[in-house]
């Protein structure tokens, strides 16, 4: 059997250290569980039934989408109303049955559908009440969680890819390339980012991916600068000279040899970039320059909530959701930083 102590790489040691920091580790577990679960939201929180058994036939509305109410003998225009259908099935006691998702409200259904009311305060029916168009706040909150995290993760990854590529080349090649991008970065960083994003998205009316693109375009510089410094420092080390003397290509030296040695800032900044990404999305949505309207988003919910300030649940819910999410990411970030880039202070006494 291999001796484990001997073979732990520096990364494994750091990971062990991270795991020993409870707050961050549990936050990571809880948050990633919720995030993975949030991809199953259409099955958990939805107004379409999972399975309907009607006259010895089985239907799967959640998969097949639109099924007119007439199919189930329901006298309604358009799509079947499954919550009412469930009620009527159990009243009739005819052997027909259906299974609803755990939380039978969709984030998009408003007052136009089956008994939704505006501004309902939280109850056992609507856990966090309803908003100004009768949409269920809790359902929207959960869907927005998935969108926010996906947005921030994608954004951060993209930013880092550009940052590593450009910053790496700047640090590695130096010279005119470096000088040119330094000027560009200086110009770029003198602009108020958020304002530029607002301007661009006021012109383009962005979709999810376009918004990520715009944000990346504006925000790539922070990681670029860090990576430039890292590559610049590593470049002069002996192992790089050794790799070069063995005839390794620049590309291989940069990404196979230097990059693994300069990942510390990438990893330690990652959670905080995600925090910044989520905050930015909430901010843009609040100002009305984020994702297009029906998309569930915390910022838009907060905006509507603040226009109806007497309906406290409409303000508190998105703020609390954002707060808890960000808090757990900050905990993760703190743990990661402690594990990967520890600052050791000798104590006064």
């Amino acid at each position, binding site marked *: 059997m291999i001796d484990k102590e001997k073979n732990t790489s520096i990364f494994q040691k750091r990971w062990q250290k991270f795991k020993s920091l409870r707050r961050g580790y549990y936050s990571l577990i809880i948050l990633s569980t919720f995030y993975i679960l949030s991809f199953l939201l259409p099955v958990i929180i939805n107004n379409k039934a999972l399975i309907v058994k009607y006259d010895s036939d089985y239907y799967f509305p959640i998969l097949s989408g639109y099924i007119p109410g007439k199919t189930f003998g329901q006298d309604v225009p358009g799509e079947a109303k499954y919550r009412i259908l469930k009620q009527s099935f159990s009243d009739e006691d005819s052997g027909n049955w259906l299974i609803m998702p755990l939380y039978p409200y969709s984030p998009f259904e408003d007052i136009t559908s089956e008994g939704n009311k505006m501004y309902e305060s939280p109850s056992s029916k609507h856990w966090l009440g309803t908003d100004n168009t009768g949409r269920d706040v809790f359902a929207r909150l959960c869907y927005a969680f998935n969108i926010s995290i996906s947005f921030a993760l994608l954004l951060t990854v993209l930013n880092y890819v550009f940052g590593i590529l450009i910053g790496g080349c700047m640090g590695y090649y130096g010279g005119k390339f470096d000088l040119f991008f330094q*000027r*560009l970065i*200086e*110009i*770029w960083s*003198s*602009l*108020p980012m*958020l*304002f*530029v994003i*607002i*301007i*661009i998205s*006021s*012109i*383009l009316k962005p979709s999810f991916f376009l918004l990520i693109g715009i944000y990346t375009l504006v925000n790539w510089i922070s990681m670029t600068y860090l990576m430039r410094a890292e590559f610049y420092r590593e470049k002069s080390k002996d192992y790089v000279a050794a790799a070069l003397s063995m005839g390794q290509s620049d590309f291989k030296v940069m990404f196979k040899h230097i990059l693994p040695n300069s990942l510390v800032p990438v990893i330690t900044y990652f959670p905080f970039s995600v*925090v910044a990404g989520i*905050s930015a999305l*909430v*901010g843009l949505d*609040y*100002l*009305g*320059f984020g994702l297009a309207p029906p998309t569930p988003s915390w910022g838009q919910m*907060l*905006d509507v*909530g*603040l226009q109806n*300030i*007497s*309906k*406290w649940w409409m*303000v*508190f819910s998105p*703020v609390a959701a*954002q*707060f808890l999410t*960000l*808090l757990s*990411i*900050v*905990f993760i970030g703190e743990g990661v930083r402690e594990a990967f880039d520890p*600052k050791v*202070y*000798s*104590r*006064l006494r």
Partner: protein
Amino acid sequence: MATYFLRRLLLMIPTFLGSTVLVFIILQMAPGGPIEQIMLQMQMGGALGVEGGGGSSSSITDEGMSLPPEALKELERFYGFDKPIYQRYLIWLGVWPREIKHRDFTIPVNQSSFEKRVGKKDGQIWKVDISLLEGNKLIVTEKNQSTKSLWHAKVEEIDKNGGLNGVIFQKEFSGILTGNLGKSYTYLQPVTEVMKPRFKISLFFGLTGILISYLICIPLGIRKALSHGSVFDFGSSVAIFIAYSIPGWALGGVLLVLFGGGSFLDIFPLGGFRSPSEIWDTLTPFQKIIDQIHHMILPVIAWTIGSFATMTVLMKNSLMENLSQDYIRTAFAKGLSEKRVIWLHAMRNSLIPIASGIGHILGVVIAGSYFIERMFNIDGFGRLAYEAILSRDYPITLGFLVIVVLLRLIGNIISDLALALVDPRIRFK
């Protein structure tokens, strides 16, 4: 050192030009530039309102058709949309002559000169002669031939009868370099006039916020560093985590719900910079102070929270780092009192990172407040810029950017200067 800062000042110029070029291009090339936007609105008969639900009071969007063709033409001429983009940029900058005071005229067929009344000078009607040269060129001469005319003329088009439609104008160097930021579409006033009062409001708020956050964060950071690992340190860390995880403006929203009289307590006003002027004017000076503070408490809290976490942690880490240095050990070793070591030796060095942030204050004050100003309904600089985007008031948008970029560039230099002043080890070359 002086050469270093001189060079920094000079380097500001290309950076400033670069960022203005960038923004100018974004705004001008974008589908929906000022002219296209207005044309679209006219074609749609004003059906295209402002989206996003901002409470803008735009005369263009509210009335839809309010911009007559002459105004559109004037706008086009003001922006020089008949010119290539680089000229437009130079005009906007103020280094290329801007054509102003356009007056249309028509020269009938077979006529080679024309007398045009262009306005008044010294209380008398001012007329100039326009004469037609070979190749449809126009020349303008004053009535008394001695002086060179201020006016220039050019042919715009030849109508189907063969008459010439021309325009006569003056040239003027006026752009952002001469302090002319243009005229706002929505306020119908020069941009600088619109900005001035709002700038003051934002500055007032921002400086109060910054001052308070310094007053809280520095002592708190010191206390945390000195009692690192204690219950106090842990407790305040919780507060810091909370403050870091909630944007200041979102907390502002929660505070509004709690204290603004919506659902719970009715202690503070819902927003506004101060009471409306009808009430404000009737107040005694003392009441005015109270009223002002009353309106400011919630926004300033929201403002302060924004920098609370980072600044406290910065102060704490900086002091702890210094306390672990050798010179502190030496100071203890030679028998200095703890007070003296901490407050005189360590503290001075720990304030360096805080001091270097001073230059960024202005930029943050100005640009960071769209949210808070919108949330608390404060008629400040950030909200002005936000509403300018909503109502596509490009002169204000561009003017805002110019000011913010300038403030940031100057702020960077001030930061370096402050750093050099407080840290004798730093020598810029």
